């Protein structure tokens, strides 16, 4: 029993954090916003060079063979900076799903290119009707009633939807002919795990975004003066921020435990992941509200970054299952399995 990250995990997260501080700070976000683009190719190149693409892919399939717990703090760091590019979706969700069908002749080359960082892949899953960043992707994995399909993306099959998040281009994908890579039965387990990874890494990003909002607001509260004092010296402001920080402190270990638990793929791990998604969404929502309030009218404008966080938080709160969906997965554990202090880390050997 040890709740700490390994030195390698801490190091990986630190590398990503410092790269993002360099290439994804407020000026970078602003620059992208004015350019009207949703993807910074120069930044993406640097991120690709980190070699994270195959982190969750088994070594036999050309990956690093690592676990969600090795990536969870990276996802948190991406959320903290409100990273526009979907690094987490690609590395944490799309590529592992491809890897589950690595033996399929059409999947194999696609997986290889994705791991090499040459292409990106999108996932169209029933819980997410609008697919983010599909127009930049070379291929999409599409879940249909009778199985999982792979399709090369061409612009004519995409119908654009407009997200409030300026960095989140959305599309629906037309029902075009595609290659079925797995039947419904074959796809069942990999898709269940995809949903878990989706929820987990979205939770981790939300957790990072919550801290990002707090840190923005703290910075402003130290500088902005009213009545001759920094507004951060007023107790009402302090208490807003302290309440959010409490929420964050008690969401973080849940997200980390969910990452460690994910590979179990049982009713316990699913409940923990859903709990993480709920807790992180709640913290992020509260954090964005507090930040807007503390920035005053500035917070209601495009002048500062808070609105970027708010909009992404609205999106991610629903991505990979919204609160009601996840509450039911928690209910399946709470109302049907043993409860009590000795059950936090316990699980029955029979997988439910």
């Amino acid at each position, binding site marked *: *029993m040890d709740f700490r990250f390994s030195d390698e995990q801490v190091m990986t997260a630190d590398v990503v954090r410092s790269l993002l501080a360099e290439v994804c700070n407020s000026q970078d976000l602003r620059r992208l916003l004015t350019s009207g683009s949703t993807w910074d190719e120069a930044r993406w190149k640097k991120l690709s060079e980190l070699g994270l693409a195959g982190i969750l892919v088994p070594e036999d399939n050309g990956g690093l063979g690592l676990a969600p717990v090795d990536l969870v703090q990276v996802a948190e760091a991406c959320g903290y900076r409100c990273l526009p590019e979907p690094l987490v979706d690609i590395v944490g969700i799309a590529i592992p799903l491809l890897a589950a069908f690595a033996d399929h002749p059409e999947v194999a080359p696609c997986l290889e290119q994705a791991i090499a960082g040459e292409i990106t892949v999108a996932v169209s899953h029933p819980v997410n009707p609008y697919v983010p960043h599909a127009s930049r992707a070379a291929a999409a994995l599409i879940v249909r009633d009778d199985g999982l399909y792979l399709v090369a993306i061409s612009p004519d099959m995409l119908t654009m939807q407009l997200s409030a998040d300026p960095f989140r281009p959305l599309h629906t994908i037309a029902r075009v002919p595609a290659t079925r890579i797995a039947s419904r039965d074959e796809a069942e387990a990999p898709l269940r795990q995809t949903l878990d990874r989706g929820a987990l890494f979205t939770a981790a990003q939300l957790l990072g975004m919550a801290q990002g909002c707090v840190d923005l607001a703290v910075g402003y509260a130290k500088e902005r003066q009213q009545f001759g004092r920094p507004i951060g010296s007023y107790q009402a402001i302090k208490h807003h*921020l302290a309440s959010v*920080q409490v929420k964050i402190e*008690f969401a973080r*270990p849940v997200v980390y435990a969910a990452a460690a638990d994910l590979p179990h793929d049982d009713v316990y791990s699913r409940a923990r992941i859903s709990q993480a998604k709920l807790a992180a969404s709640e913290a992020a929502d509260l954090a964005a509200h507090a930040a807007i309030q503390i920035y005053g009218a500035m917070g209601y404008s495009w002048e500062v970054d808070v609105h970027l966080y708010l909009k992404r938080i609205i999106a991610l709160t629903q991505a990979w299952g919204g609160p009601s969906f996840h509450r039911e997965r928690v209910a399946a554990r709470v109302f049907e399995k043993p409860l009590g202090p000795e059950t936090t880390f316990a699980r029955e050997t029979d997988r439910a």
Partner: protein
Amino acid sequence: MDLIYTEEQNAFRREVRSWLEAHVPRQPLPSFDASREGFEAHRQWERVLNEGRWGMVTWPQRYGGRSLDLIQWLIFEEEYYRAGAPLRVNQNGIFLLGPTLMEYGTPEQKSRFLPKMASGDEIWAQAWSEPQAGSDLAAVRASATRIGEEYVLRGHKIWSSRAVFADWAFGLFRSDPGSERHKGLSLIFFPLNAPGVRIQPIPQIDGETGFAEIFLDDVRVPAFNRLGAEGEGWSICMATAGFERGLMLRSPARFQVTARRLVELFMGCGTDADPAIRAAVLKAWMDAEAYALSIYSTASRLAAGGQIGAEASTNKIFWSEMDIAMHKTALSLLGARAELSRHSPDAVEAGRWLDGYFFSLAGPIYAGSNEIQRNIIAERMLGLPRV
């Protein structure tokens, strides 16, 4: 990160469980705040625990402990609450003063006070608050005047839990008469039956005398009873407060048991309940789990040599607010029976939810009010300016 118990930890759990099964009183003990009889029954239980060397598993062997780590302490607590064992009447001693004594006490003080604390022969009260010194603890006025090898204590302490029946108190006194605020304070122990001590019980919200006023009128104690250097009382108190808010005072198991009872109450009420209540029941379980995970995470860090920091404040806010929410949800489920007190024929679980709700309302007040904790988080964790 490895969230699986080792075989050794599992074996330890089994050992605790079987000992508790054999020793926990079959009938719940009468309240330690309502009568001398209830208090003494709890003292007797402390003796039983101590004889099995289960009083405080993290303490060194020579003081009646087992030198175990914090993860094992958490496992012990889980089993303790699972077994429905009695509340710890000496919690001010074993959870607060004990760790402080081990850090700041002289070897003579440790051997004088710790074994009797562990055995329950001496039960402790905390005497810090005064009528004019609540949140602003540095405003204490009670004085300790040094005369030769003795201190003479004078003053008025208040809200001292268990002081009605306890044996000793650890008090915060102004030992330097000219001093102000945090300076010139000393932490001094005094027997509650010493000449010049008068105890005035205060009925609490539930009618029981869980705390008391302490009037000190020229109470003489040896200088040996001072913990740490003269004038260093404040920093020692803050260390104690860290233990209090941080880990020891409220272990996660307590809330996990409440959450389980709440789920059982909900299921017993039929599943056609208001969806808002159902969501609150699920939230109770999630919050109790979140608290447990967070404490395990802190314990792992401390086991590797880390220090407890501002999480003492975030913990205190989290558990106290969670406790209120869980009890409120239970009262909603009870409907018309919510108001029924203990002896009412229709009272559910002898009014335990209502009693628990009352007590939960004290959580945001004692051990440093939640407003003060929020100030600490804002200033020390987030770095916001003081003025």
